[in-house]
């Protein structure tokens, strides 16, 4: 009969985030037919009695496992791709699924040259420009913002005009407080957010806080594209830390879980150190530790290696 510890390990290997390959090898690989049979009989959450007298594996669980086995491979492929190709493929997939937050993330957290590179790769991979595909696919009020964001080529120098920043903060404040019209439909808001340099925008957000007493995040609708845009521009590390926290929660859904791979792979050479520190600050536990507790196997080891690069 199977040892209780073995059963626990296998259960974890079969239900977690990534697959514990070693347990599968050392436990499952060694079991003879009787042991495997009693495993199947003892785990109704994975197997059920079929009327034709065999223990049948639940199909959704097989699909779940395939998914989990793929996590390591997906992470590895994503890591190996040229950053431009990586971002272009992520953008294409995000557009197809309607995940506008991921489009915003790519457009706003990459540097001007990195975003340009992604647009080049997009040409090569898909024979279209990213802006034409976004413009064609997005038919709601998000369109103008998203097209402008993926087309942006922001100035990245240090010069900021404080007067203009203050004026634009006023414009932003009035637009956001205006109950008649949603801020994303306000042309001035879109103009400011999608054309100004990031440094200028940080100044704008500071003046905004001075003027209205609240931050833009507090005043904007949560989960809106505009809210993500401003979060990504004002503090990428805070934004990414939040996403990682959602991914590592017990209740995370598949989209949140995929964010774990995406964020760690795309940020390993950029903001990883700041993100880890921010995560630790916000949650009292180190990012590595949380990953250790929540994920399994090669997938886990790969993520930990990437996170450790920041140290």
């Amino acid at each position, binding site marked *: 009969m199977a040892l209780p510890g073995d059963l626990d390990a296998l259960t974890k290997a079969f239900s977690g985030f990534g697959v514990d390959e070693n347990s599968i090898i050392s436990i499952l690989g060694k079991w003879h037919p009787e042991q495997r049979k009693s495993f199947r009989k003892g785990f109704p959450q994975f197997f059920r009695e079929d009327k034709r007298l065999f223990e049948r594996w639940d199909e959704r669980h097989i699909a779940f496992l395939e998914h989990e086995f793929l996590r390591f491979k997906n992470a590895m492929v994503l890591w190996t791709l040229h950053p431009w190709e990586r971002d272009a493929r992520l953008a294409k997939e995000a557009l197809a699924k309607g995940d506008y937050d991921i489009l915003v993330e790519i457009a706003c957290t990459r540097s001007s040259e990195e975003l*340009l590179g992604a647009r080049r790769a997009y040409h090569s991979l898909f024979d279209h420009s990213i802006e034409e595909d976004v*413009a064609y696919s997005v038919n709601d009020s998000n369109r103008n913002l998203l097209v402008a964001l993926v087309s942006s080529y922001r100035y990245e120098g240090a010069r900021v005009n404080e007067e203009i920043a203050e004026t634009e903060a006023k414009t932003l404040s009035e637009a956001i407080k205006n109950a008649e019209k949603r801020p994303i439909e306000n042309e001035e808001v879109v103009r400011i957010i999608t054309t100004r340099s990031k440094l200028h925008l940080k100044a704008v957000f500071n003046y905004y806080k001075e003027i209205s007493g609240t931050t833009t995040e507090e005043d904007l609708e949560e989960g809106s594209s505009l809210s993500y845009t401003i979060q990504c521009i004002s503090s990428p590390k805070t934004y990414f830390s939040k996403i990682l926290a959602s991914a590592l929660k017990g209740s995370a859904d598949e989209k949140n879980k995929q964010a774990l791979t995406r964020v760690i792979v795309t940020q390993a050479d950029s903001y990883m150190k700041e993100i880890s520190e921010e995560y630790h600050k916000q949650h009292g536990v180190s990012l590595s530790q949380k990953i250790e507790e929540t994920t399994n196997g090669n997938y886990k080891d790969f993520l930990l290696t990437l996170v450790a690069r920041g140290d």
Partner: protein
Amino acid sequence: MATITVPDHTSPVEDAENLRKACEGWGTNENTIVSILGHRNAVQRKQIRQAYEEIYQEDLIKRLESELKGEFEKAVYRWILDPADRDAILAHVAARNAKSDNRTIIEIACIRSPEELLAAKRAYHFRYKHSLEEDVASRTTGDFRKLLVALVSTYRYDGDEVDVSLAGSEAKILHNMIEGKSFNHEEVIRILSTRSKAQLNATFNRYKDTHGASITKSLSGNPADEFSEALCIAIQCIRSPQKYFEKVLRNAINKVGTDEDAITRVIVTRAEKDLKDIKDLYHKRNNASLEHAISKDTSGDYKIFLLTLLGCEEL
């Protein structure tokens, strides 16, 4: 095809020295300046600037700015710059000035290749510590702004692949807007500013096949507002840059009190590209050569410089 003629062997150092001599002492020897710079391509002009800087520790451009005057100076200044820098300066002047200069921005956005437009935007960052998009956006409003900013921000796919059925459906959208049947400017802006040039030309062809008249003909006549005008210019620039430039030159020359800015802009920016084709079109359209028209309408060193760039040998 280009119109300037360039000698087989040139020496940047010799050129720099001769330019220096032309600027020294009383007055300036404009003929030397024209005969050297008017026969050098962009790469050579850059080498001359570098050589001049190394030998004399001075910026040749600044020197010429102080020695020369008037339209001649403006023309030489624009000519001697790197193409990307030149575009940035032209765009900056246009973005800051009156409406009539929006043509320049649309020209740069629609006629340059995607990489040239990018180079111009980088040069703009470097010179003005702003992005071209933010400057254009902050000085315009409404649909006009949306169109202009979109045209300037785009990084078009530059391949030849075309979706024929898409060309048909998008030609219809354009037709509806032109016939006044719909006021949906968003779709028109989307199409014109994001599709590749190959795709757009396929769309314009379908338009002509379906409706008999070309889209540019359908748009001609007095445009109702600055948005329509900009639309018209953008379409002309994408469909046929040479025809567009012929028209600009024709209008600039025929205008009471010649528009030297426009003449300089077209000749300086196209002399190394397709000025020959523009010249041919001009001759066909006006029964007179462009050189002849320029000779009549301009004078002095400015005229001689323009004619040199046009490839005139006998001066």
